[in-house]
Each structure stands twice: as structure tokens, then as C-alpha cells.
């Protein structure tokens, strides 16, 4: 492939992924209220447009038009950097996700993944771990005790659950033998989904993903009853919108990562029997991936409107005393299973 074609194709892919991320995050806000309405036996938004389909647009216009206040005593530069950083780190994770296999056009192969770096999982993990800064900087720069408490809660929660998340990923890396997200997705062809190999790891990862995105039942950072509004108490207008939007992008990315790591990514069993054209097969893969992602997002909402919020000590106990020992046990069991022939030979069975 010529260098110019390569650059143009990568740019288009980046723009498409960015646009889809924004669109899905935007309509997640609509879906959240519709799902909440459904679970609470009411209608949800139904005034703006057909079935309220224009509600996110109306919200965006409202947030942009609102008066913007910056507290006079706060640190202005950091106050602005906070939400920007939150949104930036949320958007950065989509780079290493394989959205499909390869499309062949005009004799050239175009893989549907922006960058297949060989340390993709570590990249994801690094971006998640610097996502804490957006919240901490914003909460501190507000110069408000409630904001600071919310920020401290959020970041201590994220740090605690990052440990268990990393340990559950280690077991996944042991069975897949690679750190590249593209290879992990490709390995799950047919029924070789990682959830069947790593059920415990998958469960731990999903729980940690809920905690990392600050979603219910782990939404302590924005506990209205105790903290007024959490780390974004002092924020107004679109800066507050950025924080809320970043949460929805994180939810979308978490659903994507869970589907890619554990539920086969773009793979769907038996589809090869019905579709034979490789391009059509790739498009089917993209559709399957998005179907899994949308179910994941629905699952996030389902849990949010079903379970009550944890108490803070319960949250910490769950993270440090249940999930981390379980994920270490998972690593030990995975290692023992992988070395079973050697262990059997050693014990003379």
C-alpha cells in the first residue's frame, strides 16, 4: 500500500471511529432514560421528535447555551483541563480495538483496526489508569470540599479496582499468550470465546469495568445525598456535559472491551456457512460486534436501575478482600490447568 493511501485510510478510520463513539455515547444518554423509564414503568423522554429521538440534541443545545460559571477562587487553567482530560482519555481507548477483520477494496487490504500494537492490552490499561487525573484535577481545581471529597472517592475507587482488573487480565494473557487485542479477537474464532475459558476472570473484569466507569452500583463519586453532586459540583454548562459525556463514552468502550476480550469480538459461530463473500463477512462481523456492544450497554443500564448503591466500606471490602484474592486464585488455577501435564508427570500419575 502506498504511503499516501495508508495515511488517508487511517485518518478516515480514526474519524469514523471517533464519530461513532460520539454518536453512540450521545444516544446512550437517550437509551439510559428510555431504559430507566421502562424499568420504572413510565414512558421516558417522548416530546422531542419521534419517540423523543431528538432528546440528546435538545440536551446538547441546552448544555451549550447555559451560562458558564467558573468559581473565582478556583484554579482556572486546571479547572478547564479537568473535563478536557476526562473526555480525551475516554476517546483514546478506541484506537487498539479491532472493529472487524479486513475489507478488500481495489486490490488493497484495509484492516478495521487503527493500530494493532503488540502491547494493546497494556495501552488500554495505561489509558484507563491516567483517566483518574481528569476527575482528580477537576475536583481539586473547583476549590470546594464536596468536589474534593468526590474526586478522592472516585480516584481511590478507580485505583482499587484497577488492581483486580489487571490481575484478571493477567489470567487472560496467560491463556491467550498475546498482549495484542487484534490477536485476542482473532483467536476466538468459532466457539473459542474466552468467557468459556475464563469464566471467573470474565466476571471479575465486568465488575471492575462497572467500578472503573463509576456506574451504579459503584457510582459513589456522584452520590447526591452525601456529596451534593460529587466532583462536578462546581461545573456548569458544557464542562459538566464533558464529564457526563466521558462517562457514557467510557461505558461504550467498556462494553466494547468486554465483548472483544471475552465474548468473541467480531466473531460469530456458523456465519461462515451462510456468507461467503469476505467483505460481506467482515461487515457481518462489525454488525455482530456492535450487537454485542449494544447488549453490553443495555446490561450496564439494566444493572444501574436494578441494584442500589454500595456503601463506601462495602465497596472497598469488595475490591480488596473479595475481588483481588479471587483474581489471584484465578491466576493460580489457570496456571495449574495450563501446566497439568507437567504436574501429572511430576506426581507420577
Amino acid at each position: 500500500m502506498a504511503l499516501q493511501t495508508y495515511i488517508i485510510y487511517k485518518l478516515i478510520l480514526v474519524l469514523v471511529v471517533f464519530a461513532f463513539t460520539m454518536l453512540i455515547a450521545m444516544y446512550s444518554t437517550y437509551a439510559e432514560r428510555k431504559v430507566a423509564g421502562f424499568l420504572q414503568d413510565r414512558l421516558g423522554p417522548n416530546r422531542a421528535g419521534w419517540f423523543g429521538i431528538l432528546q440528546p440534541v435538545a440536551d446538547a443545545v441546552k448544555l451549550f447555551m447555559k451560562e458558564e460559571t467558573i468559581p473565582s477562587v478556583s484554579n482556572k487553567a486546571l479547572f478547564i483541563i479537568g473535563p478536557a482530560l476526562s473526555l480525551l482519555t475516554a476517546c483514546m481507548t478506541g484506537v487498539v480495538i479491532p472493529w472487524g477483520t479486513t475489507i478488500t477494496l481495489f486490490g488493497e487490504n484495509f484492516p478495521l483496526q487503527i493500530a494493532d500494537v503488540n502491547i494493546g492490552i497494556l495501552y488500554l490499561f495505561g489509558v484507563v489508569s491516567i483517566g483518574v487525573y481528569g476527575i482528580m484535577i477537576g475536583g481539586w481545581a473547583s476549590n470546594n470540599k464536596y468536589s474534593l471529597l468526590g474526586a478522592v472517592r472516585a480516584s481511590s475507587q478507580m485505583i482499587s479496582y484497577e488492581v483486580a482488573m489487571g490481575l484478571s487480565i493477567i489470567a487472560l494473557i496467560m491463556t491467550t499468550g498475546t498482549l495484542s487485542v487484534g490477536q485476542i479477537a482473532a483467536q476466538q474464532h468459532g466457539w473459542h470465546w474466552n468467557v468459556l475459558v475464563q469464566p471467573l476472570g470474565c466476571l471479575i473484569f465486568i465488575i471492575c469495568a462497572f467500578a472503573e466507569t463509576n456506574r451504579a452500583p459503584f457510582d459513589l463519586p456522584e452520590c447526591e445525598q452525601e456529596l451534593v453532586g460529587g466532583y462536578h459540583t462546581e461545573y456548569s454548562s458544557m464542562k459538566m456535559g464533558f464529564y457526563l459525556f466521558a462517562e457514557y463514552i467510557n461505558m461504550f468502550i467498556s462494553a466494547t472491551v468486554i465483548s472483544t476480550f471475552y465474548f468473541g469480538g467480531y466473531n460469530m459461530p456458523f456465519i461462515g456457512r451462510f456468507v461467503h463473500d469476505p467483505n460481506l463477512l467482515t461487515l457481518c462481523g462489525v454488525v455482530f460486534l456492535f450487537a454485542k456492544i449494544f447488549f453490553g450497554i443495555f446490561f450496564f443500564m439494566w444493572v444501574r436501575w436494578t441494584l442500589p448503591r454500595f456503601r463506601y466500606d462495602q465497596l472497598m471490602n469488595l475490591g480488596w478482600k473479595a475481588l483481588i484474592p479471587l483474581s489471584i486464585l484465578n491466576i493460580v488455577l489457570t496456571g495449574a490447568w495450563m501446566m497439568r501435564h507437567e504436574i501429572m508427570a511430576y506426581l507420577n500419575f
Partner: protein
Amino acid sequence: MITTYLFYFLSFLTIMFALMVVFSKSPVHSVLYLVMAFFTIAGHYVLLNAQFLAAVHVIVYAGAIMVLFLFVIMLLNLNKETEPHKSPWLKFSAVIAAGLLLVVLVGSLKGATNIMAANNFDANIGLIENLGKTLFQDFLLPFEISSILLLAAMVGAVLLGKKSIK
């Protein structure tokens, strides 16, 4: 060619952020500049084809240790007003010590142009497969001993964190 320019650019940024860490008045700003310095150092690792080291550097230093630093500084609420006044003798001795360190560094790096790599440099050594093989074959004992060191540190932290020792 482009890697040379990138190297100079990243080095400039690293030194600038490192200086900002020292010169900024507010401790929170110092921590944030230090985080930026860690990112530029991770960029240097990528230039050296050591992506694993770069990713782990970002995760461990920027993502975990500096967050804890920020935590403590934000909770202690260290501001310019509350900074304790240091005696001039302390500043004087600090300048002398730092100057002596500079002399030692300059002296040791004076002949650095003549230093050659002892072994043939393998450009792929930083990739994760090669790194893992080297670490678990050639350097297994130091690796395991360092893990025991970390375990001891963890046990010590838990012991110190306990409210009452029976």
C-alpha cells in the same frame, strides 16, 4: 532522521518539565509537571523500541504512584501560605551540595563519547517476548528476589497501616 528530531524534542520537553517541577510554587502543579515528565520519558522508551517498558512506566508511575502523591498533597492542602520558612543556611548548603553533584556528573560524563556498548545491541530486546525470555531465563534469580522485596514492602505497609498491633 525523524527519530533524532523526536529525541531532541522529547529531551527538551523532559528537561523543561523537570525544571517546572522544581520551580513551580504550588505542590499540586509540581506533581502534575512530574507526571508530564514521566510521559516524555515513556516517549523516550518508545523511541528505543521498548514499548513494554513505556507502557509499564505510564501505568506504574503516572497511573498509580503519582496519583497517590496527588492524593496526599490534595488532602494535606499544601499551599504557598502554609509552606514553612526555611533558614538561609539550609538553602546555602543545598546549593553547595547540588553544585558538587553537578561537578561529579560533568566529570563522569566528560569521556562519554568514547564509551562503546560491551555487547552487540539487539534492537528487538525491548519487545515483550524477548524481554520475558531474558527476564525468566538469564535473570531469573534477581527477578524473583526483587519480587520478594516487593512482598516484604507490602507486608510492612499492611502492618504499619493496622490500627493496633496485638
